[in-house]
């Protein structure tokens, strides 16, 4: 059995032996003199310290390893006061430092605590006592030993300067402690508790980032204010450095954060793109754009602008808002036909053939085109003329433009100006606006792909104008041959040459077109077609087209001339052929239905008698004869945008006091011409003698149906006179007589406009005789003779003459 021997704790008995029992202690009464607290021995061991400078009054830990130093510590610990002198080693001395390796000025310290560690090193806690100087070394072995001179501090500790320095230092150091994460906030409390300037300087100095030399200098500075100032400087510098340091750190962190974020987002974007199959990298895209800019053949100014914008684009991240704006701008720039133009076919005969092939009649227009081509073939750099086709709807203005393009071998481009109210539609929006686009001219050019297309500006008379600007003034720049070489679109910002373009404007009416614009265009009138022309057009173009469109090509869909005539006369009333085509299409559909229902084969000619079956009852009857049977109704001729038309002037009288009533939506000019008619009859009429009382005792009423249609103009003057004269004399108006002409109070008949349309309208309406002003004879001569066949024209210079032709002879 084993015996446990020693692990139990052992109580040590105490030998309690108080040796000084109740000794009486004498109480001395002091004389107020300051007792010398510490007696510093004259000769002290000198302990060299590497990289360390100790300051008076401050507690510092020390680690001692070398045997030399441990010997020194042992001796010091056994000496009363436990004092020794610590000095810093100069530089980086190797081996045990000798007298010349250390600074002479050091700090006398007292060892407060000593502890030996298991590895035999000494840990000390020491407290500084005072600054001292080694007068001379008395021994170097086994350790340094020297004769010590205690150093007295100098400088005025109580001066204002010192006080200010103390306060300032305390404040600045407090701020530094608060800012720096490396310093404990307790230091601030400690500093505030110190009042002695010298100790404050030492405490603060020891906590700053001085190197050994700096600390040594601080230690050697015996002038307290100077030392304070030195420390203060360092504190301020430290704060400054710390501020800069933290600024840099913040900025670096921020920069890193931002660039990392950007990078990650870009990576994701790239991934998304690849997922969507759009993985085209920006670089090659930009490169291609650059190539296109170079290849676009821009003039110098445009090229410069495009290059500048391209450079901006290249430096911009694709996510930037402006990126897409610049991109689409450049897309526009490169796609415009700066240098591309089509080769003109300057074959006059071929052009004429094409024009004839596409359109029947319209000789004047075709001549003008052929002339243009002829001149162009002689002089290649001809500026494109600006033609304006004016005429009623359906007369083929737009399709003529297309035909011209075909004849010249040019691209055809058409924009409609109807309802365009904003100048920007013509000239584009500035790029500063969101979603800005070039104007329609530039858009059309891009579509055309060449710089010399035939460019039709449809409905130029229907351009509106309001507070947003007047598009017609923008059109001026487009259409003026003097200006349009440098047409500048707001979006493009660089001029584009429009001179090679053959502009063709179309309009129904010239009146609404601003004078300035009218002035720049060569107006060509397309007055509308006669019945014969319509028959030809129908046979050549409309019927084949409808046959084609309704799938009747192999069945033969034919309309006889008589049938066409009736169709034109009784089912349409127009200057153009648009409604005629519609009616023909209606017929074609009926026939197609019959064929499809079966039972019919072979050609399907449609005769005049079939029309009522197929299209219903006749829509327009010649009504002139019927309506003019009573006295007081005369037929006038009017000019409308859709060609000419006839109008009836009715008058009647009732008992009254000589008033004149005018109804039927008459305009100012027309009302005045009615008054003139009455006045002339009242004053000058002799040939159809009229009782003067008739005017005094009756009210006269003139009405012009249809009442809902506004009418104006002086050309109904003769019709008014005729109507009044007929009513007042009781002589009816001759049947099938129509008339036009302005009148004066002296009885003259003045010329009026739109003669061709009016004559054609009269013919359409079944009029046999037309009374015209003498001075319009020339206009009539321009009308092709075959159109006038069957019409009797009477030219008159005075009202009485006219009345002779219009009123039935008195019996």
């Amino acid at each position, binding site marked *: 059995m084993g015996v446990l021997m020693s692990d139990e704790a052992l109580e040590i008995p105490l030998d309690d032996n108080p040796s000084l029992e109740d000794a009486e202690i004498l109480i001395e009464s002091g004389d107020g003199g300051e007792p010398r607290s510490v007696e510093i021995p004259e000769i002290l061991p000198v302990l060299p310290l590497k990289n360390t400078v100790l300051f008076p009054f401050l507690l510092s830990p020390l680690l001692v390893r070398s045997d030399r130093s441990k010997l020194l510590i042992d001796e010091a610990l056994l000496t009363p006061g436990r004092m020794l002198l610590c000095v810093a080693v100069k530089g980086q001395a190797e081996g045990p430092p000798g007298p010349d390796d250390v600074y002479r000025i050091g700090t006398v310290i007292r060892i407060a605590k000593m502890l030996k*560690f*298991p590895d035999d090193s000494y840990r000390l806690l020491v407290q500084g006592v005072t600054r001292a100087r080694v007068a001379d070394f008395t021994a170097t072995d086994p350790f340094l030993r020297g004769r010590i001179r205690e150093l007295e501090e100098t400088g005025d500790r109580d001066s204002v300067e010192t006080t200010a320095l103390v306060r300032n230092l305390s404040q600045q150091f407090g701020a530094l402690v608060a800012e720096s994460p490396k310093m404990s906030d307790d230091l601030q409390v400690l500093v505030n508790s110190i009042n002695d300037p010298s100790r404050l300087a030492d405490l603060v100095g020891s906590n700053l980032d001085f190197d050994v030399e700096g600390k040594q200098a601080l230690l050697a500075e015996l002038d307290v204010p100077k030392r304070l100032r030195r420390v203060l400087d360092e504190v301020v510098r430290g704060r400054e450095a710390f501020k800069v340091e933290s600024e840099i750190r913040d900025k670096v962190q921020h920069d890193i954060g931002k660039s990392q974020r950007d990078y990650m987002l870009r990576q994701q974007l790239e991934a998304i793109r690849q997922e969507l199959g759009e993985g085209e990298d920006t670089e090659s895209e930009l490169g291609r754009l650059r190539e296109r800019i170079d290849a676009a053949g821009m003039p110098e100014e445009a090229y410069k602008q495009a290059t500048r914008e391209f450079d901006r684009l290249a430096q911009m991240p694709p996510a930037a808002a402006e990126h897409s704006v610049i991109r689409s701008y450049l897309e526009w720039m490169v796609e415009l036909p700066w240098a591309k133009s089509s080769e003109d076919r300057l074959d006059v005969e071929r052009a004429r053939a094409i024009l004839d092939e596409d359109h029947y009649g319209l000789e004047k227009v075709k001549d003008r085109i052929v002339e243009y081509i002829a001149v162009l073939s002689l002089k290649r750099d001809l500026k494109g003329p600006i033609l304006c086709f004016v005429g009623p709807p359906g007369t083929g203005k737009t399709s003529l433009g297309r035909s011209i393009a075909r004849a010249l071998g040019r691209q055809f481009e058409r924009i409609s100006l109807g309802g365009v109210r904003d100048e920007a539609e013509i000239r584009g929006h500035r790029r500063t606006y969101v979603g800005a686009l070039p104007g329609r001219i530039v858009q059309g050019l891009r579509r055309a792909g060449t710089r010399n297309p035939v460019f039709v500006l449809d409905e130029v008379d229907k351009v509106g104008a309001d507070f947003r600007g007047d598009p017609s003034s923008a059109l001026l720049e487009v259409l003026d041959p003097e200006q349009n070489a440098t047409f500048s679109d707001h979006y493009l910002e660089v001029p584009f040459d429009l001179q090679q373009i053959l502009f063709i404007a179309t309009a129904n009416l010239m009146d609404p077109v601003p004078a300035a614009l009218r002035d720049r265009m060569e107006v060509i009138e397309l007055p509308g077609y006669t019945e014969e022309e319509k028959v030809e057009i129908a046979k050549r173009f409309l019927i084949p087209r409808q046959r084609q469109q309704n799938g009747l090509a192999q069945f033969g869909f034919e309309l006889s001339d008589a049938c066409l005539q009736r169709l034109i006369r009784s089912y349409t009333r127009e200057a153009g052929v648009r409604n005629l085509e519609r009616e023909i299409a209606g017929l074609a559909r009926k026939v197609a239905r019959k064929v499809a229902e079966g039972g019919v084969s072979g050609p399907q000619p449609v005769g005049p008698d079939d029309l009522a079956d197929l299209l219903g009852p006749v829509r327009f009857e010649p009504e002139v004869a019927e309506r003019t049977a009573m006295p007081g109704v005369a037929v006038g001729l009017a000019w409308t945008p859709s060609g000419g038309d006839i109008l009836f002037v009715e008058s009647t009288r009732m008992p009254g006091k000589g008033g004149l009533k005018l109804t039927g939506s008459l305009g100012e000019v027309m009302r005045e011409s009615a008054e003139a008619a009455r006045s002339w009859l009242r004053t000058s009429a002799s040939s159809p003698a009229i009782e003067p009382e008739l005017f005094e005792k009756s009210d006269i009423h003139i009405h012009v149906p249809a009442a809902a249609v506004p009418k104006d103009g002086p050309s109904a003057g003769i019709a008014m006179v005729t109507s009044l004269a007929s009513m007042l004399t009781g002589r009816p108006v001759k049947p099938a007589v129509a008339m036009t002409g302005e009148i004066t109070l002296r009885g003259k008949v003045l010329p009026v406009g739109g003669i061709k349309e009016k004559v054609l309208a009269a013919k359409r309406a079944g009029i046999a005789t037309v009374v015209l002003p003498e001075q319009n004879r020339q206009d009539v001569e321009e009308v092709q003779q075959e159109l006038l066949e069957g019409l009797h024209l009477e030219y008159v210079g005075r009202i009485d003459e006219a009345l002779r032709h219009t009123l039935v002879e008195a019996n």
Partner: protein
Amino acid sequence: MSEQDQDSLAEYFGEFGDRLRGDRWQPDVDIYETEKALVVRVEIAGVRGQDLNVRVDGQILRIAGVRRAPDGAQVRRLHQMEIASGPFERRLRIPIPFDRDAVSAQIADGFLTVTLPKSETGPRRVSVEV
């Protein structure tokens, strides 16, 4: 002495675990060797013998006790209070072999002096027979 200095002091001399205890005061200790013995001197003025306990536990010398504070009932107003009081304990590792049975302790002039005679043989081993 400021708080900060005390901190660094505690940090510095805190290699022995017991010094880190904040709940009791600790008397200062000197330890030195003479020719024959290791001497531990502890500053325990005012601690009565019956309140003091000294034990040897292996290589650890444990000194514990209580210093009585002045009778609180008689105190009217305080002006300065520096002398620590209450229970204390110090555990000191003895760095050399010593004769455990010959350890002696005595109190004189406010110091406790513990004398640990040096032993040539080193720490006694425990042998166990089976």
